[in-house]
């Protein structure tokens, strides 16, 4: 298989399989999780300012007082790479074209040099949070295979995409094909790993906020 055949395969059959598994997995898990339901809380609700599902969704996007100082790498690194990922994935012109082709939705893109800079910052932030996870005994103890695996799945598309644009390591065609392949691996594993938080994070926050809000506790 030469580079063009490989590229055409990842753009064709490979993408079809990856998107298929992604859609299958996402629907399966969302339906399974949300159909679990919760027991009706029959106690009378307590009113408290700022205690609701919606409040929690927003509140948990902001670090609690003092936490940034206590755990700067987790917060600053975490924010940086999440925001960076969103910019790189959703505001790079070729990515928007793919989304447009699949969904019909499109929006303006950012200049590619800016995306390039954001990619480097995002990768740096990811490396720092990984180093922190390895260095801090508690974090290391809490980490499972799933954590190392999902870090790798997230990092590879960034790395291969950047290497492709920079013409490093391999000829562009091979690197572009590897980039698309790495994204396909991410799509395939996303519904079945911790990465599924992309779909559940706000839902679970709402649940927690709602339950605690009923008890009059703004969390």
């Amino acid at each position: 298989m030469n580079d063009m055949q490989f590229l055409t395969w990842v753009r064709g059959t490979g993408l079809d399989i990856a998107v298929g598994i992604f859609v299958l997995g996402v629907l399966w898990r969302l339906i399974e999780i949300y159909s679990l339901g919760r027991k009706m809380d029959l106690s009378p609700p307590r009113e408290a300012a700022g205690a609701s599902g919606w409040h929690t969704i927003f509140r948990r996007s902001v670090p609690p007082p003092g936490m940034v100082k206590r755990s700067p790498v987790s917060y600053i690194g975490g924010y940086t790479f999440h925001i960076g990922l969103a910019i790189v994935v959703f505001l790079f012109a070729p990515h928007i074209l793919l989304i447009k082709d699949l969904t019909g939705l499109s929006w303006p893109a950012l200049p590619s040099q800016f995306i390039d800079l954001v990619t480097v910052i995002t990768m740096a932030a990811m490396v720092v949070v990984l180093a922190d996870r390895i260095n801090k005994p508690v974090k290391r103890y809490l980490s499972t295979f799933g954590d190392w695996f999902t870090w790798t799945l997230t990092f590879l598309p960034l790395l291969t995409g950047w290497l492709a644009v920079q013409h490093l390591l391999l000829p562009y065609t091979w690197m572009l094909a590897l980039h698309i392949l790495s994204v396909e691996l991410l799509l395939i594993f996303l519904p079945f790993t911790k990465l599924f938080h992309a779909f559940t994070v706000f839902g679970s926050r709402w649940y927690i906020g709602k339950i605690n809000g009923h008890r009059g506790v703004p969390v």
Partner: protein
Amino acid sequence: MQGPLIDTLARQGVTRRAFMKYCATLASMMALPPAAGRAMAEAMAAVPAASRRPSVIWLPFQECTGCTESITRSHSPSIEGLIFDAISLDYQETLMAAAGHQAEEALHNAMKENAGKYLLIIDGSIPLGLDGAYSCIAGKSNLESLKEAAAGAAAIVAMGSCAAYGGIPKANPNPTGAVSVSDIIKDKPIINIPGCPPIPVVMTGVLAHFLTFGSLPEMDSKGRPKAFYGETIHDRCYRRPFYDQGKFAHTFDDEGARNGWCLFELGCKGPVTYNACATVKWNAGTSWPVESGHGCLGCSEPDFWDGGGFYKALSMPADPLKMGAAAAAVGAAAGVALSFANRGKKSAAKSAHETTTLADLEK
């Protein structure tokens, strides 16, 4: 032609200075050291009378003659075309006056007299289906002709994408079983000059290198001369700044197209195509596809016909996604089935629940 090539050129109005300039340009285009230009000029200028000129045999197989058209038309009657005067083109169906038995005779004489020394140029792919019956010349299949001619060749030039990689004939579903020259010949030096058609100066550059140094120039992993196929169209494209700025033509007649913005969205394959179009251009440097407003088709890459369509951007799916709807149905069904299973488990646990009383604990 009588006497050395330089005399012939002089008779045709080409000055020594123009000839030296051409050789120096060719050498620099091929990224050769400065002295190579002089060596080329000396080697080509000194090519003597007809009998001793290096023999070149050009065999056409499953092809459209576009490669020959490209070579003969685009720069003629410039100095470039005259490089052919340095060689003895002993067989070229389109250009030769002879036909039938005479042509065959010329071919076999050339092969016999120059055994082991001639340069073999092939354009077109070789069909293997039906024992090669899809394309025959003088009662022989292309496969037979290629093997016969390759046996005595010093080197082989696979001219155009068909000879280099199979090209259009090899496109899905490849009805004739077309293959490239390098799929068949394994024991001779082969250089690929892909393109549909290839750029004339690439062809003459390779010829000049062969005449000067007696060998083929440095090649990339796909057997192409690195000097001409070392960079992508995208990297050398004059519209590249628009790509970087995120300025794209969305259709062939919108404002972006009129402003000359990047054609990536319209399916340009420049980012994955290695060729010299963006720097050398076509028709004596007049223009090239992107300059005329159309994206690169990627014609110098293998299997460019099966790359998912000329008008689909590289980041778009090559084929329509077929599994999405079925996957959604299966995923939803799996989710619903599991939710019923989970509820069943929950109610089973509830009904199996036994109340523990104080009396039980005191037992």
